[in-house]
């Protein structure tokens, strides 16, 4: 029973973590809270849904397609709404981000309607699997395994590739990175691309898990994931993963203990408590010298 709830919580937490990574990476580099990130997640969910329903693709191909769609969207948003404001005040960029967020969710409502849509029957076989006496659903396994693979891939990119190292350098000291000859604008584009791809994967997985994709799903999930990023320490990649999983597990535990109407309050209570004790989040570093 406990194991079952734990798996439940970890699966939910993995979806938060996938979205939280985008917030944290972008914040790490340009100190911007990308308010439109939740809508990138929503767009990924719709792209996945359409690719399965009309493109007749299997779930994994649709997932890849959705990631591609969101990457293009994320890069486009950065280019149109944030890049021209790079030298402007942070507040201007934040307002621009909120504008994009409202624009994208309204556009989705006009295009796809106000009602939630589900994935076609049998998109992914939902079965209960017996593991050590716990009933685990195949959907949860799908989420945990997919998220795990994507996070490992991210870790490899950030630790081993040239552009990944440039990302870490720029996130530590944007100006010094530019002085070394790193094309920091390209690094920003790449960061948006990575974050958007992960968010899209999260969107498709959430859409399959709850069998619902709607124009406003980005708002709720976005706020939760942002809380996860702050909980883990904004700017920290492992922090985003940890924060997501902690929130997911806490939320499911709360529900299991019978406080399901307090579900969201639990997440934010934990956030507030952790920030009181550790203002920089669980794995956050000192906040200094952000240019």
């Amino acid at each position, binding site marked *: 029973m406990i194991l079952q709830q734990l798996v439940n919580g970890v699966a939910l937490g993995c979806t938060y973590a996938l979205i939280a990574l985008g917030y944290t990476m972008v914040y790490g580099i340009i100190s911007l809270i990308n308010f439109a990130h939740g809508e990138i997640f929503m767009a990924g969910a719709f792209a996945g849904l359409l690719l399965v329903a009309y493109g007749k693709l299997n779930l994994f191909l649709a997932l890849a397609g959705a990631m591609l769609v969101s990457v293009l969207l994320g890069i486009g948003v950065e280019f149109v709404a944030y890049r021209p404001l790079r030298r402007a005040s942070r507040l201007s960029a934040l307002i621009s981000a909120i504008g994009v967020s409202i624009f994208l969710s309204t556009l989705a409502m006009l295009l796809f309607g106000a009602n939630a849509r589900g994935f076609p029957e049998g998109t992914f076989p939902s079965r209960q699997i017996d593991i050590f006496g716990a009933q685990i659903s195949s959907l949860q396994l799908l989420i945990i395994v997919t998220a795990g693979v994507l996070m490992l891939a991210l870790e490899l990119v950030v630790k081993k590739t*040239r552009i990944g190292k*440039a990302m870490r*350098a720029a996130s*530590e000291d944007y*100006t010094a*990175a530019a*002085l*070394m*000859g790193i094309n920091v604008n390209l690094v920003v584009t790449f960061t948006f691309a990575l974050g958007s791809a992960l968010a899209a994967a999260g969107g498709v997985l959430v859409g399959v898990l709850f069998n619902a994709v709607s124009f406003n799903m980005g708002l709720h999930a976005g706020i939760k994931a942002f809380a996860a990023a702050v909980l883990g320490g904004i700017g920290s990649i492992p922090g985003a993963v940890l924060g997501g999983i902690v929130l997911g597990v806490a939320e499911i535990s709360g529900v299991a203990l019978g406080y399901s109407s307090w579900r969201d309050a639990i997440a934010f209570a934990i956030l507030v408590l952790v920030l009181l004790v550790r203002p920089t989040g669980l794995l956050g*570093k000192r906040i200094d010298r952000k240019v």
Partner: protein
Amino acid sequence: MLEVCGISVRYGAVRAVTDLSLSVAEGEIVALIGSNGAGKSTTLNAISGIVPLSGGSIRFAGEKLDGLPPHEVVRRGICQSPEGRRVFGSMSVAENLEMGGYTLAGKGAVREGMERAFALFPRLAERRSQLARTLSGGEQQMLAMARALISSPRLLLLDEPSMGLAPQLVEKVFETIVTINRQGTTILLVEQNAGMALEIAGRASVLETGSVVLSGPASDLARDPQVQRAYLGI
């Protein structure tokens, strides 16, 4: 080689640099001295493309430099080791050097650059896998200079390399600057330590509130009573 012609830089309403001109010829060490807030770092950052000009122009090797993004300036052969070292603390020494070689094509060139850096700073070789933030202040300064040299710049901009170092280390840093220069790198050096800077430089300019107030051969400046009083504490 470098021609800075009448540049101005402002941060909002603050005028940091006004109508400043200076030049650096191939093979020289040119020192830029001045008190806190005189606009020395701003001048270097204008050359590096970090801050935009509000007037004037910068040319390097006959080509217009202003308006280029920082990474294009590095590609053209100018690299800056910024004030306060600014090494990437959570990256290893080797990774820091790798970042210094970011504009180089191919791993071979980066490795070559690293070997040259390790020859110049043997202590860094022993510490190549150590995180930069765990290095001592002196070692961090060596790393900052080594990092700026990996791309074999034609012109090296050094912003207060002796800042915060113990006297023997300061001596060592200035010796290294001379060595780097002898090996063929032209240097524009910003320093608070005016005495040492004027000793190793061929020419120098004195900056006051964003403008050059004096310039000429470093040995002449070192004998100038005004400079002695204001910057050499004599």
